[in-house]
C-alpha cells in the first residue's frame, strides 16, 4: 500500500531561532504588533510503500530519527494517510 507521510520539523522550544526572531521583528516593523514568537521550521512530504499504516509509520519515525531530524536541536511531528486519501 502507498502512504503519504507529512513531517513538520521545528527547532526545540529551548533553542533560539535567529531566523524566526528576524521575521518577528520584520512583522513588527510592518505594524503587526500583535504577532510574536515566529518559529521557522521545515515541512516534508514522503511517499512510503508498506504493508500497513503501522509499518509505514514506524519507518517514517525511523527515517526522521536517522536523517530528517537532528534531535540535538530539533523536534518533529508527523501525520500519515493512505496515498489515495491524501490526493483528494
Amino acid at each position, binding site marked *: 500500500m502507498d502512504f503519504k507521510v507529512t513531517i513538520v520539523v521545528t*527547532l526545540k522550544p*529551548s*533553542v*533560539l*531561532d*535567529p*531566523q524566526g526572531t*528576524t521575521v518577528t521583528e520584520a512583522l513588527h516593523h510592518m505594524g503587526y504588533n500583535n504577532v510574536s514568537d515566529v518559529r521557522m521550521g521545515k515541512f516534508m512530504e514522503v511517499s512510503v510503500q508498506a504493508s500497513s499504516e503501522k509499518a509505514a509509520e514506524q519507518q517514517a519515525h525511523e527515517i526522521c530519527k536517522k*536523517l*530528517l531530524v*537532528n534531535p*540535538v*536541536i530539533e523536534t518533529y511531528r508527523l501525520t500519515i494517510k493512505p496515498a489515495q486519501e491524501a490526493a483528494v
Partner: protein
Amino acid sequence: MIKFGVVMFPGSNCDHDCFYAVQQFFSDQVDFIWHKSTDVHGYDCIVLPGGFSYGDYLRTGAIARFSPVMSEVKKFASAGKPVIGICNGFQILLESGLLPGAMLRNTSLRFICKYVHIKPVNFSTPFSKGLKKNEAIHIPVAHGEGNYYIDDEGLKKLQKNNQIVFQYCNERGIVSDDFNPNGSVANIAGICNEAGNVLGMMPHPERCCDPMLGSSDGKRIFESLLQSLNQRQTV
C-alpha cells in the same frame, strides 16, 4: 613523513586550500580522498574541509555524514588518529556524532566572512599542544551557520572533560560576548572529542598559513599537530 588525506565531498570548496596549505608548508605527502572511497589506510591525519557539502541541503553536514568515507573516518578516529574538521568539516563531525552539539544559524543574521581572534584553552590535543596560553590567533571565519549549540548539561560535560579547544576573543585574548561573531554557546570556536584526537573548528587555519594572505597564525595549529605526530612516530 606525515601523510595527510583531505576528503572531498560534492560541494566541498576548501579542499584545495587545505591541500595547498599542507603541501606548501607541512608535508609532501598529501592526497585528496574522494568521499566514495572506503580506504583511508596509510594516512596520519584526515582533514574534513570547509564548503557546502551536498549544498547544505537538509542541514549542514547532514548528508555528508552518510558518505561511504565517513564510516572509515569513524574507525580512523576511534583508533586515536587525528581528524580535523574545519567549518563544514566541523558541521559534518557534529552530524556524524563524532563531536557533540549542533550548529544553528548565526545570530547576526548574516554570512560572516572576516578575520577574528581565537584563544586556545585546551593544550592537551595534538592540534593545540604547541600553542601558548593567552595567545590570540588571528584567523578568518566564513560561515552562515557557525552558531554552536549544546544544552546546559552538554556544556557542563564539555567543560568537565576539557573539550573546549578554542574560544572567540579579542586581540588581547579576552573572551567575552562582545567578541562572539555568531552567537556560539560559551564563545566556542572549536571543540574536541573526549580522547582529544578529533577537532572541529569553525575558523579556517588553512586560509592563514601563507603570510601572503594576511596572517600565518593558522600554521601554529598544523605545526602543533606535526610536532605531536612526529613525537608519536619516534616513540
